[in-house]
């Protein structure tokens, strides 16, 4: 049963920020509500004011600029991102991830900003966006700040957002030459969240050596984490099956998974090892062809 709240419908971002500044801790933001309404019904979230930004078209856009990269407004739906030819062409991993996020109905109404701000460690977009070195733009009535998505999650279901702040945009840098990003999650139903998920970005230099690597583990710790020891295994080498396997073993150690009804801690570590090996290989093969 959802507790009563006062519904506030701002006409634009400025009004939304003024409402947040006024009500601070007493207000929650709803966009698509695909996660929020479920936990409100479970009584886990009780709020005096609900600020509805779903209709703010001002924040619904996908723009590409060769210098700045891809900019996605917070109220853009998953479905819009997955179907955008711009995304499919320049960031195929992002479109592929979105296509496997929950179900069509959820993707039609749910938004990228809402998903990221919900801060579920099992969410699909965050690991991929962190692998792509994305930042988020955060606005309040006094100004904006830009935070790497990697630093956006201090803890389980927590973000660095202050009560008067709104996540307004995601920025993904332009893809670098000879690089690729791959993502896989392990789940029983395709529309489920991953029991674990792994995103890997790799770039290769002219000598065929791995120049840079970003390995991100999803649902393998309270927040999406960079597996930096795993990255060190990859950087500076010509990658082979042996190194892919070593990367998997390193990620197994580096993860900090919990046990829950979906999987034990050991099983999660096993899955992380397998997926890291596979995803690293997939990213490597794509980067070498790029």
């Amino acid at each position, binding site marked *: 049963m*959802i*507790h*009563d*709240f*006062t*519904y506030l*419908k701002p006409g634009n971002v400025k009004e939304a920020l003024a409402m947040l500044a006024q009500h601070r801790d007493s207000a929650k933001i*709803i966009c698509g*509500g*695909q996660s929020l*309404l*479920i936990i*409100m*019904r479970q009584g886990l979230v009780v709020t005096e004011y*609900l600020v*509805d930004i*779903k*209709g703010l078209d001002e924040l619904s856009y996908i723009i590409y600029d060769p210098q700045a990269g891809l900019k996605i407004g917070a109220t853009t739906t998953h*479905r819009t991102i997955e179907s955008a030819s711009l995304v499919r062409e320049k960031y195929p991993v992002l479109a592929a991830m979105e296509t496997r996020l*929950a*179900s*069509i*109905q*959820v993707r*039609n*109404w749910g938004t990228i900003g809402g998903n990221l701000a919900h801060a579920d460690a099992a969410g699909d977009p965050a690991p991929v966006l962190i692998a792509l070195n994305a930042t988020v733009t955060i606005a309040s009535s006094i100004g904006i700040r830009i935070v790497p998505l990697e630093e956006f999650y201090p803890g389980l279901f927590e973000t660095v957002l202050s009560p008067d702040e709104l996540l307004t945009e995601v920025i993904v840098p332009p893809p670098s030459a000879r690089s690729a990003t791959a993502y896989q999650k392990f789940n029983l139903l*395709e*529309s489920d969240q991953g029991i674990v998920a792994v995103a890997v970005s790799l770039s290769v230099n002219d000598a065929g050596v791995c120049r840079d690597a970003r390995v991100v583990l999803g649902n393998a710790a309270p927040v999406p984490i960079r597996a930096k020891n795993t990255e060190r295994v990859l950087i500076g080498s010509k990658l082979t099956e042996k190194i892919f396997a070593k990367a998997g073993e390193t990620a197994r150690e580096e993860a900090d998974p919990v046990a829950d009804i979906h999987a034990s801690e050991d099983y999660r570590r096993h899955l992380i090892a397998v997926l890291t090996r596979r995803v690293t290989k997939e990213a490597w093969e794509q980067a070498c062809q790029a």
Partner: protein
Amino acid sequence: MEKQLLRFYVNDQEYELFINPKTLLVEALRDHLGFTGTKRGCDTASCGVCTVMVNGMAVKGCSVLAVQVNGMNVTTIEGLEKDGKLDPIQSAFLDEGAFQCGFCTSGMIMSARAFLNETPVPKDTMEIRRGIEGNLCRCTGYNSIVRAIDAVAKGKYRGVCDDSK
């Protein structure tokens, strides 16, 4: 709590409701307007029985606040039949026996209709299966449902019923 005025269209008919803003779309449709063809199942956006179309898009009525569809067009299972004639997808479900207990049927048909509107010519049956991934059926094993959607996609009902929606 202050009640909110919601003005929207359901199956091309305009309605006005003065409701508690926590009212879900499925509650507005079923409890306030009597469109009980839309079912209520898991309430966690998992099962899909509450699927309706909002401005042509399939959404789960249990996970949308009714006030968020202000000014929009909602289509429920009751809105598919036109002038006493079933929608092709409804006829196909009957012909293929694409239900047993029937609880998933209205949500399944709304997802199927939205899918066919967006994808009139699916590449293969896997694409059809992906199109209804957000709907669970515990009886049929999905094969008869997929056959029904495939039959409409292959034009079996063209001319028999209006397929222009």
